[in-house]
């Protein structure tokens, strides 16, 4: 299992557009990707759940990745977050 934290910098938080991109990214891998913010958890492959997190700027996002391709997935999702959020 890979785990890392990321602080959201995007002024609007995880709004619809980046949420969509994030879900697309997570779906590229077989590993399960779990996001949590303020104790709320969400499957990163489900758009409603990700949007339902209500993650905003300056909040700490924890990312948990578990599965065969967790190494690559963690790398790729981390850089995705840095570029988009």
């Amino acid at each position, binding site marked *: 299992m890979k785990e890392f934290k990321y602080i959201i910098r995007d002024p*609007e938080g995880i709004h619809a*557009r980046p949420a*969509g991109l994030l879900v697309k990214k997570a779906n590229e891998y077989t590993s399960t990707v779990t996001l949590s913010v303020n104790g709320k958890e969400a499957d990163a492959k489900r758009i409603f*759940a990700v*949007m*339902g997190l*209500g993650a905003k700027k300056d909040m700490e996002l924890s990312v948990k990745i578990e599965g065969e391709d967790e190494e690559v997935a963690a790398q790729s999702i981390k850089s995705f977050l840095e570029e988009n959020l």
Partner: protein
Amino acid sequence: METEVKKYVGKSVYKGIAIGRIRIYEKGDSRVKREHISDALKETDRFNSARETAKEQLKELYEKALKEVGQASAMIFDVHQMMLDDLDYIESVTHIIESQKVNAEYAVACTADNFADMFGAMEDDYMKERAADVKDVSNRVIGILQGRSEGSVSGDEPSIILADDLAPSETVQMDKSKVLSFVTRYGSTNSHTAILARTMNIPALINVDFDDGLDGKQAIVDGYNGILYVNPDKELLEAMKKKQEQDEKNKKLLHELKGKENITTDGRKINIYANIGGVSDVAAALKNDAGGIGLFRSEFLYLGRDDFPSEEEQFNAYRTVVENMAGKKVIIRTLDIGADKQADYFNLGNEENPALGYRAIRICLSQPEIFKVQLRAIYRASAYGTVSIMYPMIISVDEVKRIKKIAEEVKTELSNLGIPYGEVEQGIMIETPAAVMISDELAKEVDFFSIGTNDLTQYTLAIDRQNQRLDEFYDSHHPAVLKMIQMTVENGHKGGCWVGICGELGADTTLTKTFIDMGVDELSVSPSFVLSVRKAVREI
């Protein structure tokens, strides 16, 4: 068979050809019914195939938006597609179908409500707004399940509007630039849909018994023959396009009459003004070279809303029209609410005979506080051009005296506040047999008469103009009506009034000569008829 040409025959209320896609006008919500089903698997399949269709449509929309507005804005359609692939969403719908044994439409609607509630409960204002996205995608799926909308759906393109019937409050709210034609199941030639179509210069049909499930289909409205064609073939399309071009040519011919006088070959002149129902109609009036506004229906300010329009709002609307007409006469008719034009906040209550009921000037005289707001707004606008006021549904001299007293009070109030206003002619609508019979007395009280032939005919012939079954008995050329018009003109002139006609009859070119012979001074017609009436006048 999807591609088979379907033909529906009805009654035309305005000529012309319209070609475009059908949009079904739905009243209110509650479109989804809960139905019990036995085969949950089959229902789940229906849901999944509708979901796939919806995704394809969204993909098309995404591509279209990508080209037109760029990636950032197009992305929302991508997100919508993902919503339809969301496992929570799919599981919820499937679960409702399986556990409650209900139809897919209902399951989707329930799921949409639940997810929308989730977003609605979030603190983030932005996320609250996402409830609309869930509803949007879900409605798309429900639409597909119900067999509405096929192919690419773009609600924004101008369409042929199909409806059971359209109330005035519904038509006033429509974006007129998105309407190519009206086709209704019910309605009569004198209904508001018909009048609106004439004002907008678009073909319209009534009494068309069209099938359900036509939303989004390609269609042609042939306003010459009263036919609605659905899924027209190439040949038909070509023929109709030719007809449409011919129409355009005729219109151009009419435009050659622009700037010409309304004068008969033996030198008699008449004013041709336009009837308008709102600020946006002024453009059509000017384009068609109307000499003024002979009837500015002020109801649009009152319909389709929850509360009375403020003095300021009214003033701005009147002033815009007055300024745009640049000194040409603008005759504003005070509110004519009641009968077929209803606004809930007036609390008019249910009446046995609304056409004979609490309406128009009767409301104004018993609730002068409403009336005064409108009069103040009109008087204030009169400082910006040439304004006349006309009062509807008059039956007695006493009413006119009471109105004039209230108008004087309004003028005094404005003067005391130092607010400017202009010279305002006072006139009344002659639309009741009573007003005709005492027109000699009424003429002494006012500056002009305007004959409202629609109501005058309805009251004279005792025929409800909303009742389509009476169309065969309704004779707009009834000698009784023509005699009433003649009497009104004679009495008006004797008392120093000019006399006009602002009903639909004014545009009937088979009567133009009759009216001129009677001595009618003005005809006020839908903007699109101004030039054809001018043509008729010049040929006399």
